[in-house]
């Protein structure tokens, strides 16, 4: 249509040149109408162009898009999802573009099991003082299997695997994920004992929460994949002291036990060493004894023929031979010659406990 009017438009510029002065007023009016009509036409063309070019859209690197044509997704199966880049669709109301975040990690927090606090309070460390009791309207907490109260909270990281499901089947899928996480915390706490949650089996508790969340999200067909789950649990702040003392007592016990074990090791290894030295000494004794008696026997065998040939002489010789070293070894040797008159000498000994000094046992002549 605009093509049709183009000649008019070009014809219009030179219009003022051939002035027909029959009716100046109507002439001016016609001119004004012509020019405004031209402006309207240009605007219309621009609007039509804008209308069609508004169908261009970009899909970012971390999202996918779905085109709904008359409300129905365009394409079949995997092709429904448009990847990142430039795309074109018919403008509304024919097509509608729905963008879905997909590769980016989504995150939900569960704080229904935590006391009332805010991120700022937590950062600054200035939390509301804890009262003697917990108000269920304000403070969240979980009940453990042994009916203790603990605070527990979790953060779940996941990404969307099936965007069609996630967007078109749920009004607020992330809220559903959050509630699944809430449920998992309470469910898991309900069959863990307080010490398991807080100290003994922290990892087990987290794994059980994760298991429950993935069961629930799978059951609800949320179309998500869970990446990671972080769980934090603390005893009630009101009982912080007494819980700390339990920890200290447990550590003390472990220290005492470790000390006892090292004592045990020490005592046992010492005993082992002593035992082996005893048996070794015995073995050495035995060897020496046997050795010496065998040597003795051998000597006896050697001496026997000599003895038998002349017992008296042999005895004499052996005795004298033996006396040699004996006299050499003896510290004091005192010789008492016979009295000239042949009477026996009288000898007095003073026995002393002290080591005898030379000449401390004088012989009284």
């Amino acid at each position, binding site marked *: 249509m605009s093509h049709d009017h183009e000649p008019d438009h070009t014809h219009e510029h030179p219009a003022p040149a051939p002035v027909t002065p029959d009716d100046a007023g109507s002439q001016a009016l016609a001119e004004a109408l012509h020019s405004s009509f031209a402006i309207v036409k240009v605007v219309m063309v621009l609007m039509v162009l804008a209308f069609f070019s508004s169908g261009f859209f970009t899909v970012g690197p971390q999202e996918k898009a779905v085109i709904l044509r008359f409300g129905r997704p365009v394409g079949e199966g995997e092709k429904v999802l448009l990847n990142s880049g430039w795309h074109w669709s018919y403008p509304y109301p024919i097509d509608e573009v729905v963008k879905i975040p997909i590769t980016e990690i989504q995150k939900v927090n569960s704080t229904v099991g935590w006391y009332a606090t805010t991120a700022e309070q937590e950062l600054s460390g200035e939390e509301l003082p804890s009262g003697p009791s917990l108000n*269920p309207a304000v403070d969240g*907490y979980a009940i*453990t299997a042994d009916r203790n109260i603990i605070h527990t909270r979790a953060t779940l990281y996941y990404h969307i695997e099936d965007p069609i499901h996630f967007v078109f089947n*749920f009004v607020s899928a992330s809220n559903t994920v959050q509630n699944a996480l809430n449920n998992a915390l309470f469910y898991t706490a309900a069959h863990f004992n307080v010490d398991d949650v807080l100290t003994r089996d922290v990892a087990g508790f987290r794994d059980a929460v994760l298991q429950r969340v993935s069961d629930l999200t799978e059951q609800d067909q949320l179309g998500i994949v869970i990446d990671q789950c972080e769980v934090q649990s603390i005893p009630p702040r009101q009982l912080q002291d007494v819980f700390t003392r339990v920890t200290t007592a447990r550590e*003390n016990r472990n220290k005492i036990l470790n000390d006892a074990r090292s004592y045990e090791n020490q005592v046992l290894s010492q005993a082992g060493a002593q035992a082996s030295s005893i048996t070794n000494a015995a073995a050495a004794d035995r060897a020496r004894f046997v050795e010496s008696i065998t040597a003795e026997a051998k000597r006896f065998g050697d001496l026997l023929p000599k003895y038998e040939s002349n017992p008296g002489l042999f005895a004499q010789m052996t005795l004298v031979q*033996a006396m040699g070293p004996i006299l050499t*070894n003896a510290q004091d040797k005192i010789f008492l010659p016979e009295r*000239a008159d042949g009477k026996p000498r009288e000898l007095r000994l003073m026995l002393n406990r002290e080591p005898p000094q030379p000449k401390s046992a004088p012989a009284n002549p």
Partner: protein
Amino acid sequence: MKRNAMTVVIGAVLIVIFALLLFVFQVRQSEVAVVTTFGKPTAQPYDKPGAYFKWPWPIQKVYKFDQRVQNFEDRFSENLTGDSNPLLVMVYVGWKITDARAFFPKFAGGSTLAAQNMLESMLRSAKSAVVGKHPLADFVNADAKQLKFDAIEIEIEQAVQSQLQTNNCGIGIAFLGIKKLGLPENVTQTVFQRMTSERQILISRFQYEGEAEAQKIKSAADRQAAETIANADAAATRIRGEGEAEAARVLPVFEQNPELANFLLRISALQQSLNQRATLIFDERTPPFDLFQHLPTNAPSR
């Protein structure tokens, strides 16, 4: 004329667009539409996405509903368990419109708010009925077999589901779970007292257990050490005995001449006994000093 044909085309296009607006409506993916003719729902609801034909207002009117799962959480309300413990329970529900034709007339203009109000009252009664049937041990229990958490959720869901069915609301429950459990405020205080005393028991148990255990370990070690040494002593005695037995085999050699054996023994005994710090006193009759006997001495011959 050229201009006339153009005008006709434009006019026709405009009329078609206007007619489409009047006679066609869209149903989006995830939506369901109910068409009323003079205020009465007609035919099947349109639950597949696409464009559909309708008569223009005031003959037919289109109501669209969200067919997706909607979330709803009820109030954190107090109920008595089967064993008369007060317990606060909050549940979350995922519900959706399953039958738009039934849903539409039930709630004024198909308002989801009205539907949720009804859902809340149904949940309240279902919750108190189900919680009242179970003792507290079914809610919290270390034994996985006795814990009936799942069963309780299913029971509440079934109760609500059956109420929805009898009322023919056109609503279905997609899932239902417990969001939160709690105790009344004054009960938490007694729980704290109990927890404190339990902790104290633990503290003293750790102390005494540790000491007793350490004592046990130490005394066991001492006993074992003593045993080891006693065993070693016994072994030593045995070893020495073996040595003596071995020596006994040599004894017959000495029996060839006991006299000589005796003599030799005495000599070696003599040698050993006089080995150290001995003082010997002799007279002339003891060999070898008897050699002095007939020597001229310098003794004064008194």
